[in-house]
């Protein structure tokens, strides 16, 4: 069973966000990684790009499937994991750590209330598996 730390927030689209002050570090969950299969390609926004909660900020492709990445919060991209773009298999190895994708400086911190807690996210996963 995958580990979904309480210290992170989650989305229904299977992204996670690690919050520190006004910034949110974002990636995809262990569950999303398992569903995708081996990730072989990653497309992320430019530094400074504006992303909007619920809208695509990038694309991740496995050997078979193309999936959009959805921003959990609105704000400006302040970091991009270029190393991961160059070697996206990092997502396969450790989606919650090495697999971080971008850091967003939140412009609407109230949105955090709309994200799922680890417990809520795991309920969602249990429902998906039924």
């Amino acid at each position, binding site marked *: 069973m995958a580990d979904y730390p309480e210290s992170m927030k989650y989305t229904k689209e299977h992204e996670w966000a690690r919050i520190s002050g006004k910034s949110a570090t974002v990636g995809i969950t262990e569950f999303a990684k398992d569903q995708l*299969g*081996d990730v*072989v*390609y990653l*497309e992320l926004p430019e530094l400074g790009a504006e992303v909007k909660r619920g809208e695509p900020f990038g694309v991740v492709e496995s*050997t078979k499937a*193309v999936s959009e990445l959805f921003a959990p919060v609105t704000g400006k991209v302040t970091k991009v994991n270029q190393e991961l773009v160059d070697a996206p298999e990092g997502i396969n190895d450790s989606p919650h750590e090495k697999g971080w994708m971008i850091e967003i400086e939140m412009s609407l911190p109230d949105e955090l209330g709309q994200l799922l807690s680890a417990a809520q996210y795991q309920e969602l996963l249990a429902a998906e598996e039924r």
Partner: protein
Amino acid sequence: MTQRTPLYPSHLAAGARMVEFAGFEMPVQYQGVLEEHAAVRNQAGIFDVSHMGEVVLQGPGALQAAQRLVTNDLSKCKDGQAQYSALCNERGGVIDDVIVYRFSAERLFVCVNASRREKDFDWMLAHAGERASVRQQSDEWAQMAVQGPAAPGLVDRLCEPRVRDLAYYHFREATVAGVSGCIVARTGYTGEDGFEVFCPPDGARRIWDAAVAAGAQPCGLGARDSLRLEVAYRLYGNDLDEEHTPLEAGLGWIVKLDKPGGFIGADALRRQKAEGLKRKLIGFKLSGKGIARHGYPVRPEGVEKHVGEVTSGTMSPTLKEPIGLAYLPAEMSREGTRFEVEIRDRPVAAQVVKTPFVTKEAQKKP
């Protein structure tokens, strides 16, 4: 209602992720596509391909009937030999690509694609004539492919009589892992050496388990697709369909326009050849970033006009480069020609390259 192959329980036990494919519940992967792909390139992998169909032509006119139905020349195929071929409609469009196993001039066994089982059977029945019976045997056979450098030895040790001496595209009836009545053929869809084994459905698990115990890694449809694409083998429904001819698909080598008696579609193909091809299926690599996928439009460099489309595409696990097949206008089909693939409304640079993408020499490079 989807069908299950006799190996369904083995797949679940091995932790496969199952998907629907051509009406079957099939394993798309077990451990991971990249690992399975590498197992076949470096060692040995085993695939359940029981979804493939089998149609048998039998009777005094079987060879003649088969010759009318397929584009390749079965008079050049000896008994005990197999031949890659195509069934075409009158317009020359590809109904299916098949392998014909010639047991004798009176008995030919045709392996067809899962999605075309019924279509092929109906077509063959309608055009076989009086002197050959056409039998649908798709549910009477399970099929496995064991592929990779270690596959020939592995399969050989399970067979009685042995099969190691079989040449490429030759086959033999054998008992495999104690299961009698099997057909063992030195064929495959991966670009590696190996065998494909047809067996009675109730013997499938025994053979599967014996091959896995001997070291063959279970591989799913995901790896099957990336392996075949690296060697530019065509996939029906992606690269081949009734709207394209085998000539356009680069399969001119299986089209024998001058064979005695001709075949269905030959007139249309002869005309197309005389007039010159307007489009061709080519191999390409992306030099820009992204992965081209089936259905993505292609355009000339710097020109916003769709002139063709991608039929297959993936990130090559061996080369770690994005590769694909696409139909392009003939004038853009020469090796080295630059064009663009539209990926999510963005043009990405591509270049026509020689196929297969992966050769034994290319694999040896670090």
